[in-house]
């Protein structure tokens, strides 16, 4: 047991130097805004030039406030929405260059689990069928094979096999989230995008689902893109974290490094705003003023300059580049230039 843990530990350490499974470069997504008469009025600049890599058995956490573009990033790399620009390299192929027919073969490699376990499962289907459905779509195995795998996955995700014929409404939120995870695992993907997978769950149920996600990651050799606005949850599960603000990734670092040594003023404010359930750990808050500006008309220069306590003259006009500060720790801010 101990040896196994040590081995796993080694693998985790090596992971960062291995070849990435997925490379996302300059990802951009603008949503057009049209008038009621169809005239183009502008764009929601939801994601602007985002870069990251995903590794086998690795987890990248994406954090940031509502509307900063986390879900849009996740959905873009799965091509659930078509990105405006950029490349998404998976095993040497740019997925964004493939036509729908070519892409279909890759679709099963990347699955998604959503926040709301109530609306993401078709209420009219039995949970067994729900898990078999993706296998059917991708023409995997015989009917008997699929049923066997569904049973296996139910058991693996902590749902009793005899509940195979039940409907989603007969399960609690946490159980439904497990069913969603079993469904994502059905086609044996390499990557799972988890969009706020525990946000709708009660704390006592959250930890059950987080532990499950960690166990199956090793077992199924999965890469996770873990999206959440809850930094405590992300810190627990992610090896590396990307902080987003108004469509931009403003800082990216290995998890421990980010918490020990946050560099970007927004990251610092975000970390200091998290309420800690421990009375001995009270700290000084950096309260940033005001609200997030509109992504339709984002500020010039550094997008954070309208709220940044350290903003300088150049921040208003010059957009800071994402620069490497130390091993794997990147930040986009003129203070570190």
């Amino acid at each position: 047991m101990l040896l196994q843990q040590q081995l796993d530990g080694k693998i985790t350490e090596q992971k960062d130097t291995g070849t990435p499974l997925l490379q996302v470069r300059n990802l951009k997504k603008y949503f057009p805004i049209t008038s009621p008469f169809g005239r183009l009025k502008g764009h929601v600049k939801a994601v602007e030039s985002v870069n990251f890599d995903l590794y086998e058995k690795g987890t990248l956490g994406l954090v940031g406030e509502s509307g900063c573009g986390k879900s849009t990033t996740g959905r873009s790399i799965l091509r659930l929405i078509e990105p405006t620009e950029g490349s998404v390299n998976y095993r040497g192929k740019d997925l964004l260059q493939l036509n729908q027919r070519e892409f279909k073969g890759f679709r099963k490699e990347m699955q998604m689990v959503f926040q709301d376990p109530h609306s993401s499962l078709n209420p009219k289907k039995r949970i067994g069928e729900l898990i078999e459905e993706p296998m059917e779509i991708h023409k995997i195995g015989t009917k008997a094979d699929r049923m066997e795998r569904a049973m296996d996955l139910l058991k693996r995700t902590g749902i009793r096999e005899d509940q195979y014929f039940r409907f989603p409404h007969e399960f609690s939120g946490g159980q439904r989230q497990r069913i969603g995870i079993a469904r994502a695992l059905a086609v044996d993907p390499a990557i799972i995008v988890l969009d706020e997978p525990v946000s709708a769950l009660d704390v006592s149920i959250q930890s059950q689902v987080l532990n499950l996600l960690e166990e199956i990651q090793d077992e199924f050799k999965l890469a996770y893109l873990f999206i959440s606005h809850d930094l405590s949850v992300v810190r627990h599960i992610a090896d590396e974290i990307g902080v987003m603000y108004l469509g931009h990734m403003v800082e990216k670092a290995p998890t421990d490094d980010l918490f020990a040594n946050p560099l970007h003023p927004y990251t610092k404010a975000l970390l200091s705003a998290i309420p800690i359930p421990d009375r001995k750990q009270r700290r000084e808050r950096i309260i940033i003023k005001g609200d997030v500006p509109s992504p339709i008309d984002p500020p010039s220069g550094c997008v954070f300059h309208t709220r940044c306590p350290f903003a300088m003259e150049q921040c208003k006009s010059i957009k800071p580049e994402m620069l490497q500060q130390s091993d794997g720790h990147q930040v986009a801010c003129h203070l570190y230039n």
Partner: protein
Amino acid sequence: MEGYPLLEVKELRTRFSSEKGTITAVDGVTFKVDYGETLGVVGESGCGKSVTAESIMRLLNEKSTRYDGEINFKGVNLLSLPEKKMLDIRGNEISMIFQDAMTSLNPVFTIGDQIAESIIVHQNLGKKEAMEKAVEMLRLTGIPSPEKRVHEYPHEISGGMRQRVMIAMALSCQPSLLIADEPTTALDVTIQAQILEVINDLKEELNMGVIMITHDLGVVAEVCTRVAVMYLGQVIEESDVDALFASPRHPYTRGLLKSIPTITGDRSQKLHTIQGVVPALDNVPKGCRFAPRCPYATDKCMTEFPLLETLENGQKIRCWHHQEIMEREAASDVITAAT
């Protein structure tokens, strides 16, 4: 009303009846809130936090709801007051803010009109003075250029701003008790920090009592002086906030505190889990309500119902075995530390 505590809830029981039968959503809740104090009420979804608050305000439909127990506000039992008297108290002496400010604000009136309206209703002020007071209240909540903002409509402002408007409205009559039901749950952390600060500052300025309902133990640690932990309609532990975090006594509270990931915890450890799920209200366990999920449950727990016991230090616990559990855990901590 001098000499009486601000609010004293005693053995509150709130029952809903329908064709399907009766459910007891709040079942014997007892707590106290003093002037200048923030009581946190925490617990998982469905444990009865909102119903407790709605009972204090008497907001529930009284045709299908039955209240028992006492809700003594400045020495007067609100449950025995006629509805007409409640109108003077609601929104005036006791105010409430909700999680979703959008649904509580009227989309067709400007925010200034809405705040002014509640001032006119309760304080007998003219329109012009009420509007001036509305501007003043908005300024207090930290909204920049409030004299411009009063002319805006709810959909024109952000979620954090709307929550400030709700606070301005709730506090415009200088209530002595503010009930905040998940006031920041829908907001981002940086905005949450702003709102919690506003509530805290105003609490101090007005010497109000505050009931802060939340499921976030982090929020409790930040702003509360005392905490009541609820489980399935009952308070299972109540204590001073420092004591609760330093030495939680009830197995549920212990489990809860261990199962949340924090930004300072050990990342390499697996998270603690509480097995199972919260039972449904129409299927409440007979003995201790936590027994089916409790690692320490005994036969007695399955059949006999523990009462809320007050310890010497003022901490209150509803558990048969809290004493033994504490001793046992302390002993095992020593063993772990030694190895």
